[in-house]
């Protein structure tokens, strides 16, 4: 039992990463109506800009903001693609676009970062915060969790309380109508993209030292992240947050199990599938999404 708890706590740091990326996926979907398969790849781009600067001798005080800016820039670029050619497209088409872009971005990213050659990833936050169930909970994983929670709360309040938030909600529901009532749709959408890029970049910078930090692995973090977003039905930030944490914890627990060891990798998938089938049991017709 104790070892199960230990593995569950050990899964927390991965869970924090999935949570923040999942919340970002919900953010993108709710505000610009795109299910973004490139979410983690954008963050990876920003992270590698930071690492490159760090490796060439620049201090973190320059590297980190530059990396965040680069992530925002890449995201904005994708935003430009989406708003220029796919403003009126269906959600499915937009998702297909980002899935296709992911293929290209991974190829370019691997090329620029030299495949799996290790880069020396500076730890933005070091050390562990406390020990629980025999597991050191690192500051980095607490920080990712904190970013996820703060981002969730701030976004919720922002959307509910401010005028820009209201405009953003209008934008995602009825882009045409929003344009008609004088909202600067494109500018607003690009801002959303930039924010997503900046947040994911920073989150991945924190996470990267404890993960296999090559471009492809970081980009493919999008799979659990989207699963988390799906648990939140792409509407609830909190559900996505909790969903991401759950996936991380389930992975942790699964790694402690010795039965069906070689099918362990499939366990999170099966759990997600079950959760989804249950949570969406009421949905019937295709207008849903």
């Amino acid at each position, binding site marked *: 039992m104790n*070892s199960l708890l*230990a*593995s569950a706590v*050990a*899964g927390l*740091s*991965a869970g924090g*990463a999935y949570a923040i990326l999942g919340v970002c996926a919900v953010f993108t979907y709710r505000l610009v109506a795109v299910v973004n398969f490139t979410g983690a790849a954008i963050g990876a781009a920003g992270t590698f800009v930071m690492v490159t600067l760090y490796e060439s001798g620049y201090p973190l005080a320059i590297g980190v903001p530059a990396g965040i800016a680069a992530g925002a820039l890449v995201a904005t670029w994708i935003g430009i693609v989406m708003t220029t050619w796919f403003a009126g497209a269906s959600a499915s088409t937009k998702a297909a676009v980002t899935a296709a872009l992911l293929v290209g971005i991974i190829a370019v990213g*691997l*090329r620029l970062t*030299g*495949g*799996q*050659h*290790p*880069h*020396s*990833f500076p*730890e933005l936050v070091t*050390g*562990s915060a406390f020990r629980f169930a*025999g*597991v*050191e909970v*690192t500051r*980095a994983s607490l920080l990712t969790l904190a970013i996820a929670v703060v981002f969730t709360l701030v976004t919720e309040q922002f959307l509910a309380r401010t005028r820009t938030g209201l405009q953003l909600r209008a934008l995602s529901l009825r882009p045409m109508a929003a344009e008609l009532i004088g909202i600067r749709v494109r500018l607003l959408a690009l801002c959303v993209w930039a924010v997503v890029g900046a947040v994911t970049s920073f989150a991945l910078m924190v996470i990267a*030292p*404890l*993960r*296999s*930090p*090559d471009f*492809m*692995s*970081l980009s*493919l*973090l999008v799979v659990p992240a989207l699963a988390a977003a799906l648990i939140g039905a792409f509407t609830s930030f909190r559900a996505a947050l909790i969903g991401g944490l759950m996936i*991380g914890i389930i*992975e*942790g627990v699964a*790694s*402690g199990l010795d039965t069906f*060891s*070689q099918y*362990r*990798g499939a366990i999170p998938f099966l759990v997600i599938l079950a959760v989804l089938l249950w949570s969406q049991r009421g949905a019937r017709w295709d207008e849903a999404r």
Partner: protein
Amino acid sequence: MKYLTSLLLTSATACCGLALMGGSAAAAPTCEDGPIQLGSVSTITGPVDFSDGPSGAKAVFDQLNAAGGINGCTIEYTMADDKGDPQVAAQAARDLIDNRNVVALGGGASLLECAVNAGTYKRNDVLSVQGVGVDPMCFNAPTIAPVNVGPYTLTTAMLDYASNELKNEKLCAFFIILGGTQEAYAQAVKRWEAMSGKTIHLVDMTLPLQGDLTPYLIKARDSGCDAVLTNQVEPGVVQMINTADAQKIEGIDWIFLASGYTEGVAKALPDTRQPVYLGTEWEPYTEVNAANGDWMAVMEKAGLAKTAFSQGGYLAAKVLVDTISSIDGPVTRETIKAKLTEGKPMKYSIAGSDYVFGDAAKHAPMQATKVMQLSGGKWVPRTTDWYVLPPVE
């Protein structure tokens, strides 16, 4: 033979002497149809960049050509890329065999090329002196004999080293299983168990390629492992040691295979206090010594980085050059095959075992490693002697 060995060990530029290897001094290879065609399939773009391997081989051939070739025959060497994609690997091999008419392959370093192409080589009667064999088929096919020890033999060797030299009792092994390597690693562990009469404490074959390692390290600690061997590749090594530091784990020897042996790894872990060991494929490439002398000279002349992969490419090229030099008459697939399958041991200073191709159904000629330890952001040799495994019965 004795003369040659001492020559190799003492002379840093033993390349000329090597031309005499394996055949009579009167051997005179001929090439009536132009330059001798050689080639390799390597993973150059895609998930990893192993281009150092074939580039190292190319450097050997280029310098040989510049010096007039072998008996006047120059070598044309084609490096093909497989992108880590089996389909592309198959195409590349067919291109080399059908269109370039290569007489042999050598110096390649790929994630999956052996598994995909071993059959093709067999059908076309072409042999491959793989520079860096990675997938299990490299060590399990009649047509391929790599010049490296390979992750599976190295697993056995390092387990043995940990138990004999590091005096570890509870050995644990965690493997990332990619592309059907499970059987090969299981075999490697079994070989050690049979050899040493001991049993392994814990084997976990589910280490994720990407993902958090914390749960696995906790598992290792809670199971009481005093040595953990894994087949992590470069970034994974860094990740694993960072995670171990983050978890304040103590008292475990971390043992890696040659895939972790890069300066990047050492630099990325400047101040870890974890005891980190690994086994090399050849003479440690970070050491400047006589054994590495010729390889270093070639790389410097070609302006290439000195990496472990380039040692593999270099060594494979040397094997091919020496084999071709020993041929009397036209250099064809048949004559090269005949020479290689004779199974004459070939000795090189950067390898701990003699290279033998021979006519066995599978080949793993290299059975010796040198153990390195991480210390202050540098890899330091633990021993100057080769750690050699007893031959497989």
